[in-house]
């Protein structure tokens, strides 16, 4: 009886997780940008950080780097409108990267897509890049993100690594590059060559967006 109850519990939990993952994945493909929903989902996440609140915030969060930039970088075209979230860029970016209940593969797909459309700056994309580098230093997320990057078309892989390695001056990215490269060469040699190319071109060699 106890065995049956335990099995039943795990079965239900698995079904719930699968449903959550499908919901999150389906919504991740939507391109609607709904700032009111992002704000409401963020507020809900702060008040009750459960799996549904995480899924809601994850779904509302921008899907593309261009949309992330539109919302979170200060710009006179959006100033004073509901699309000006530049004051919340750190809170929202931090909340996104601290989602713990979203399946890693689903999180990685969105992370990679957003990253491809970002350009290094001193604003919101700087925070994004900082969290991305932290994630790439953690084995559990690193491999999932890298596997997703390896699925991209070659130009998008360059865009991804360009954002990772972009800096206006030398810094600790050298260490991250050295730590990632051996594993990349073993598992995804083509991706490793693109990462190396991006490191050579963008590390200490890019202007911040003006």
């Amino acid at each position, binding site marked *: 009886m106890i065995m049956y109850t335990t099995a039943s519990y795990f079965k239900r939990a698995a079904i719930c997780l699968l449903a959550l993952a499908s919901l999150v994945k389906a919504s991740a493909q939507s*391109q609607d940008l709904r700032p009111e929903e992002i704000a409401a989902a963020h507020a809900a996440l702060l008040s009750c950080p459960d799996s549904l609140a995480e899924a809601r915030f994850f779904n509302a969060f921008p899907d593309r780097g261009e949309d992330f930039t*539109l919302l979170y970088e*200060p710009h006179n075209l959006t100033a004073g*409108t509901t699309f000006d979230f530049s004051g919340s860029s750190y809170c929202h970016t931090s909340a996104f990267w601290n989602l713990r209940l979203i399946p890693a593969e689903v999180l990685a797909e969105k992370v990679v897509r957003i990253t491809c459309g970002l350009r290094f700056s001193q604003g919101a994309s700087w925070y994004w890049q900082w969290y991305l580098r932290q994630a790439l230093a953690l084995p559990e997320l690193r491999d999932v993100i890298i596997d997703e990057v390896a699925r991209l078309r070659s130009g998008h892989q360059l865009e991804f690594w360009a954002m990772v390695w972009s800096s206006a001056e030398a810094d600790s990215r050298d260490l991250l590059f050295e730590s990632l490269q051996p594993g990349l060469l073993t598992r995804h040699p083509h991706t490793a060559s693109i990462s190396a190319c991006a490191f050579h071109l*963008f590390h200490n060699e890019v202007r911040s967006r003006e």
Partner: protein
Amino acid sequence: MRNYGLVALLFIVLSPALRAQHGGVSAGRLRAAYEASVGEGGRLRQRLFFDAFPTNGEDYELIFGYHPELRDSSLYDCAADMVEAFWCHDAIPDSLFYSKVAAVTCGLRLDADAPNYWQARLESVLTRHGRDAETLIDRVASLPVGDQMRFWSFVWSTTLDDEVRSRRDFHRGYILRRHPQMVPVYDSARKLFFNGINFSSEPSPRNFPECE
């Protein structure tokens, strides 16, 4: 935890500076300058239109891209005409004009509509012989290598393998003679971005078979 605290602290310290970094493009100013320049024309009006035109790719994408939510601040419907007018100048010194062309190009990703119009005009200049292409290439060669890569990536970006386009030569011989250090960047961009991307608005940047 200490790292997260440091990031939060940096955010607080940098906030005033970030607030001052608002993009400079204004839809009202650009629309007015465009209407004046196509009305009676004239060098001064062309210059005003040129000055009002976006100064980087991000502003270009924001103002001409498909963002209906921006309402009056979006010039999506006029993008084709305005981009055409920008490239048909005859009152702007070449060095100034191509500096702006390089800066805008460095911030663009290929997509339908406005980025596509820009790429077509860019290709048109770069496949012609003459001073225009060389001025633009000289300008690009003066940028940091990361920005050079962004520029050539956009020039070479295609979603499909197109035989005619694959044979295009954007003055590689001139680059080899005058800016040999830029040749590897040019070649890498061709290798990675020709038949190497999806439109940025596509649902996924994955390879086609996996997009299903």
